[in-house]
């Protein structure tokens, strides 16, 4: 089998046995990236040199009889929101175009010690803000299933990379659906772990109380393997949980007999594409056949999820992004120009205004931020700044926190009756590039089914459950109580043992000539 078509589990096993070298696997991934990235634009940075160096080191350690890590020789792509030591980390923003962090994110450290081979950094919506990957400062990602369509976002590069077989696994981050939604639209499996399950250290913050790093792969089993590696307490992240990490990949065998899955009727009313609805209901039928029971449940406050999310997330973002001011790092406007114009002013007025220094500074801030950030990022900074301002805080931010608690309570109530909640990931299959860019509100609605899991901090997984009439993948989402990833992964894996939707691949070769 071509290493590019092997799963992470298969590669790790084969490399450990010596059936294949880490170098061969890496070469296979790099050559596919080389061939496809021009059309898909999934990568912002390809680290061929670094990847080959790690592969060679793995192979030589194996040759010396040393034991290898659980992801030995498995090529992995990293969303460009995660810091990689001395490797560009841009968040797909002009602001961080030249930023090379002096450290690895916690998850990147973990991947390195488990002998995964990092092939590069994937494209995304700028600062992870968006649902289509069209907000990248370095061009949109194209959906491998149809290059005229969006891959979803914000982890669109990671999703497209895995869907196109450029690497078997990738890391994404999910603040409101940014792993699950693009996974659904690209026909792959994506897991958003429980908040705090995976350390956020080195994850460039969008909305700190919602952000979570997770694996994206072609199967739940591969996601389990990656989660095993990246999960766990990190003393460097105060919000990371001190819970033991179960051996997820070895907990997939048990049947689903007696597992109760909730179905929310409100998910199937207005707005849900009938093709999606049909595929999702067929997936419920598969689970029923596998021994699970399906129960109608209600999530009465879920309909406030999107507005709540679009207050909480921008508020935190406006704060997290305050550091990009052009002073210590990131883009700085041409200060020589500002100084020259002020010097001209001074000569004109023939006096030195005592406010001069400050206004030069303020002008530097304004211009640096205006030039460095894209329009969606600016929109969210403005939304958040407004909502946190004196006189508006109670009406917006505080109110949103209250609704967030109600949504969390909805989940707690639901999980007294059921073990998992199933439903759609997105209302439609992948949409054409440009369709929603002129209408931010319609773009915000792509998170409809995913944001509540972030607001509640629970786990969620999405995986393919069908194809649309036009041949686009359709996704199913399962959500679980906090730290119930073993069940979440077991259920998705069971589904993938019964169905083969996750093995469908886009027909890429014919479309590669497109721009």
């Amino acid at each position, binding site marked *: 089998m071509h290493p590019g078509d092997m799963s992470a589990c298969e590669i790790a096993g084969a490399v450990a046995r010596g059936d294949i070298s880490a170098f061969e696997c890496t070469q296979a991934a790099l050559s596919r990236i080389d061939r496809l990235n021009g059309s898909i634009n999934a990568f912002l940075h390809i680290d061929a040199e670094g990847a080959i160096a790690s592969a060679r080191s793995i192979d030589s350690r194996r040759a010396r009889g040393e034991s290898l890590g659980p992801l030995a020789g498995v090529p992995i792509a990293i969303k460009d929101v995660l810091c990689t030591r001395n490797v560009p*980390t841009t968040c797909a923003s002009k602001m961080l175009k030249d930023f090379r*962090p002096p450290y690895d994110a916690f998850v990147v450290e973990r991947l390195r010690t488990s002998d995964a081979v990092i092939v590069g950094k994937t494209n995304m919506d700028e600062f992870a803000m968006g649902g289509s990957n069209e907000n990248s400062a370095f061009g949109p990602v194209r959906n491998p299933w149809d290059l005229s369509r969006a891959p979803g976002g914000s982890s669109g590069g990671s999703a497209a990379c895995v869907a196109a077989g450029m690497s078997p696994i990738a890391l994404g981050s999910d603040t409101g659906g940014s792993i699950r939604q693009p996974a659904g639209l690209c026909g792959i499996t994506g897991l958003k772990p429980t908040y705090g399950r995976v350390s*956020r250290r080195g*994850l460039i913050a969008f909305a700190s109380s919602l952000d979570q790093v997770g694996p994206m792969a072609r199967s739940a089993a591969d996601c389990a393997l990656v989660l095993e590696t990246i999960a766990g307490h990190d003393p460097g992240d*105060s919000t990371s949980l001190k819970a033991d990490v179960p051996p997820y990949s070895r907990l997939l065998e048990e049947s689903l007999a007696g597992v109760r899955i909730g179905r929310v009727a409100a998910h199937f009313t207005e707005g849900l594409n009938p093709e999606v609805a049909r595929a999702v209901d067929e997936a419920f039928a598969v689970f029923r056949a596998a021994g699970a029971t399906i129960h109608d449940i209600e999530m009465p406050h879920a309909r406030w999820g999107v507005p709540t999310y679009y207050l909480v997330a921008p508020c935190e973002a406006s704060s997290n992004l305050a550091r990009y001011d052009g002073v210590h790092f990131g883009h700085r406007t041409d200060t020589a120009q500002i100084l020259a114009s002020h010097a001209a002013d001074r000569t004109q007025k023939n006096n030195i205004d005592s406010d001069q220094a400050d206004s030069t500074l303020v002008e530097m801030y304004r211009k640096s931020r205006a030039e460095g950030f894209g329009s969606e990022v600016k929109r969210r900074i403005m939304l958040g700044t407004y909502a*946190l*301002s004196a006189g508006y805080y109670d009406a917006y931010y505080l109110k949103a926190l209250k609704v967030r608690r109600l949504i969390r309570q909805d989940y707690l109530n639901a999980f007294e009756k059921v073990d998992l909640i199933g439903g759609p990931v997105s209302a439609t299959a992948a949409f054409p590039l440009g369709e929603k860019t002129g209408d931010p509100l319609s773009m915000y609605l792509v998170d409809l089914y995913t944001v509540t899991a972030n607001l509640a901090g629970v786990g969620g997984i999405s995986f393919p459950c069908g194809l649309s009439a036009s041949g686009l993948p359709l996704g199913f989402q399962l959500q679980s109580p906090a730290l119930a990833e073993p069940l979440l992964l077991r259920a998705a894996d069971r589904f993938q043992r019964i169905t083969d939707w996750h093995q469908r691949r886009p027909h890429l070769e014919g479309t590669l000539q497109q721009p």
Partner: protein
Amino acid sequence: MMMAAASQPTTSATTDVLPYTIVIGLEVHVQLLTRTKLFCGCSTAFGAAPNTQTCPVCLGLPGSLPVMNHEAFILAVRAAKALSCRIAEFTKWDRKHYFYPDLPKGYQISQFDLPFSSDGKLLVCDSKGRFAPRTVGIVRVHLEEDAGKSIHDESTGCADSRIDLNRTGVPLMEIVTQPDLRSPQEARAWLNELKLLLVYLKVSDCNMQEGSLRVDANINLHIPLPDGRIAKTPIVEIKNVNSFRSVERALLYEASRQWDEFNHTHAEIGSSPKQTRGWDDPAGVTRAQRHKEESSDYRYFPEPDLVPVTVSETELSLMTSAQGETPALLRSRLESQWSISAYDADVLVNQGIAFVGYFERLATILSDGKSASNWMQQDVMRMLNENTVAIESFPVRAEGLAALIAQVSSGAFDTSRARDIFSEMVKTGRSAAEVAASMGIADVGDDELMSLCRELVACNPKIVADVKGGKEQAAAGLLGQAKKKNPNVNPGKVRQLCLELIRAM
């Protein structure tokens, strides 16, 4: 009458009868004595080369996360408990936003609506009785991280600014008082008492030169009007005061400035926003500081990168179990345990914990608090000042000084001789006996003393006659001669012996 009324107030420096009441509240920032910063492992040591004590966390690099330094929290709780504050069972962190080049994250991690402690008080007394004891309420004590330091070099003419981020993230404790102080003198004394407390508890070194303690003072006047109403002048916040003396001077200046201004403008509180004035120490005046272009809205919100801190009763007692004695408790203990006056206890305690330790060792050996206290206040303090040395590195141990004092009590040498010996002990680090020997000071034997006195009496018939005539004080004339003949003689003994010889004649 009008003349008298106009000339009455403020002319006399000693008058307490001002035509207004001064109302003062303080905001004090104190750097905690931790080894590392509040949210990262960088050193807090003062004086390192710029930007050498930084890391991704205090630089605010993308992806970095803060982790609370428990040591800082424990020190802060210890201070708050000593200030009789209520410690919150649940406290959280908030972000305070503003843009400034020495604030790399664009926000400061601070505490907004749920500070870790509140509702405390600290009493200040003046042992000289210049003002009545004053209990100053404490609104709140909270923790926050410091910003960096901006160095604006205006000498080049191009307004070059440099930023040192070594201080960024250093733990600060902010103490906000009620407006309970009623004079600049009280404010200064209260700050001294606060500093003493924090130093005793080893919470901070309170070194103002290094910025470990910073004070902002809020002041206004309450002026009784002829119609019985009380006019309140607009509150002014005074910044840039670099010593407690400057605090007092700045407040004195500001009170009289506000009085003059009120007489001109009759402006009362609420008529204008709170004004910030900077203290110009060399000029001895406060000056209005430039208003910010935009009014500041800090957009506080809960810091999502940190978890709230909960403190149980058990944890609280563990945190404060190692707490030292507060200066107030120490004063009253010294007073009762060593039978010394409140004034003496105050002087001793104000010298610091090591000084008190020395005193108590000395008093224990001597079994005499009063004598130990006198020696400490007169001789030890004089030596410390003359040699600009701290008690911790004072070359004479309490045991050595006690031996010297014991010899004075036994009459071996008189006090002035003992002072010379003590001075030499401090200089050389040698014992009293060694110094005495090297200076040729030796106990004069009884026989030698007797023959000396006989000689004196024999050679001074005039003095003998005077003494016999009832003028005992004439014997003093013999002492000078005795000293000349043998500097080691004890003048008391010589006097006694000579008087006995004369009476027997």
